[in-house]
């Protein structure tokens, strides 16, 4: 069986005296090996201190994003056979580092949800005995298209703007607002939406660098979502006093 070399970022905040460094490991590479399999092998056989995150290992929960050979990717669905040479793994930038490859995306995304007020704003009371409000199936699918984001953070980590501007909500944030704007159940006014995203923290902060569009593992149509929100914000912004 062939072997594969990994070069992995190491830093543990509880020992700040040890500066960040890259550590190398070599393991056997069976066919069909993913980074998920590889990292667990390294932890179980070579280095039990190595920190990284996986939950679903099926590319649906968004836990395992990291920089793989320079690109933000989901580690669980990256096959080593698709990579050349030494596999270099770095934690996602922008998010708070917990240790090694593990970063705190949870706190960041919760902040995003709070900031964009990501819930259905409705004045309706729930009546358990009434039938549901009708909705066009097309609309339902359109909402789902934006809701497919798994909060992995690849779009944030890859975006230069998000890397230099702490308050920028990034593609995930703008896409999140798009999800509610297309939802007829949400009764928010133009003013409210504009207030949330009509600034450099949101729609106007984006410079069109498209790293988000290139790197989204869910292949969300981010360019379309970002420009949709930008145009909406202009029309909302110009029509409100």
């Amino acid at each position, binding site marked *: 069986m062939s072997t594969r070399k990994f070069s992995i970022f190491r830093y543990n905040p509880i020992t700040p005296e040890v500066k960040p460094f890259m550590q190398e490991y070599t393991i056997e590479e069976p066919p069909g090996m993913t980074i998920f399999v590889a990292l667990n092998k390294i932890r179980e056989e070579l280095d039990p201190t190595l920190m990284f995150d996986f939950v679903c290992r099926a590319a649906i929960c968004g836990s395992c994003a990291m920089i793989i050979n320079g690109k933000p990717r989901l580690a669980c669905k990256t096959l080593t056979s698709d990579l050349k040479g030494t596999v270099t793994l770095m934690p996602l930038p922008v998010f708070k580092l917990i240790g090694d490859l593990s970063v705190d995306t949870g706190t960041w995304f919760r902040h995003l949800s709070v900031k964009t007020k990501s819930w259905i704003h409705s004045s309706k009371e729930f009546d358990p005995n009434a039938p549901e409000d009708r909705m066009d199936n097309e609309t339902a699918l359109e909402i789902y298209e934006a809701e497919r984001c798994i909060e992995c953070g690849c779009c944030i980590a890859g975006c*230069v703007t998000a890397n230099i501007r702490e308050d920028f909500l990034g593609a995930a944030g703008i896409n999140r607002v798009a999800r509610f704007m297309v939802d007829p159940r949400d009764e928010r006014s133009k003013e409210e939406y504009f207030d949330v995203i009509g600034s450099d923290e949101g729609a106007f902060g984006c*410079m069109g660098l498209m790293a988000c569009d290139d790197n989204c593992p869910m292949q969300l149509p981010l360019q379309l979502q970002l420009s949709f929100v930008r145009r909406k914000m202009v029309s909302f912004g*110009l029509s409100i006093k």
Partner: protein
Amino acid sequence: MLVQKILTRNPKAELYYDLVELFTGITLVGFLWTHMLFVSTILLGSDLFNTLSKSLDDYYLSYVGIPFIVLVFIMHILSAGRRLPTRYQEQKIIWRHAKMLQGTDTWVWVFQAITGAAIFALASIHMFVVLTGWPITATTSAGRVEAFWWFYLVLLLLGEYHAGFGIYRQFVKWGWFPRKPLGYVSKLITVIILTLGVAALWVFLQLGGA
């Protein structure tokens, strides 16, 4: 939000900035490409070039158009220039990031920022020189190009790069076209304009030498 920010916040400032960026960007690209077409009329002969220059002058186009363009130029620098990272650490982050990510569009942007800054200096000089040497004729132009052909070549390359990718990015940002075909179209136009520009420079050089 912090008190000082609440007190000074204009909720629509960033919207207006973005619109100014959009408007000035498009206008400048439009201007530059037209300008290049006009300049390359030299390919069809000095007479045509002179006639064009004169008729633009006669119809006051130059007197209205030029101050307008200068104004747009300044507004562009203010609106687009606000994106330029000013802090050293930010610049370092961007470099590291662009290198690591190899994201094409990110690199394109880095160069756009650099070319923008360079154009700021070069185009200002160029405009100053042309405007102080009024009017524009094939002979004066040929003389300037012969003396400073390298200056023009650099300005041509930087200007076209900046304009070509600038317009691409605007279309991408505003979602008027899907990304991929847009890239091809803007590259194609840029190549055409560059060819015209180089050819025009060559003709000017020949003229100047004559």
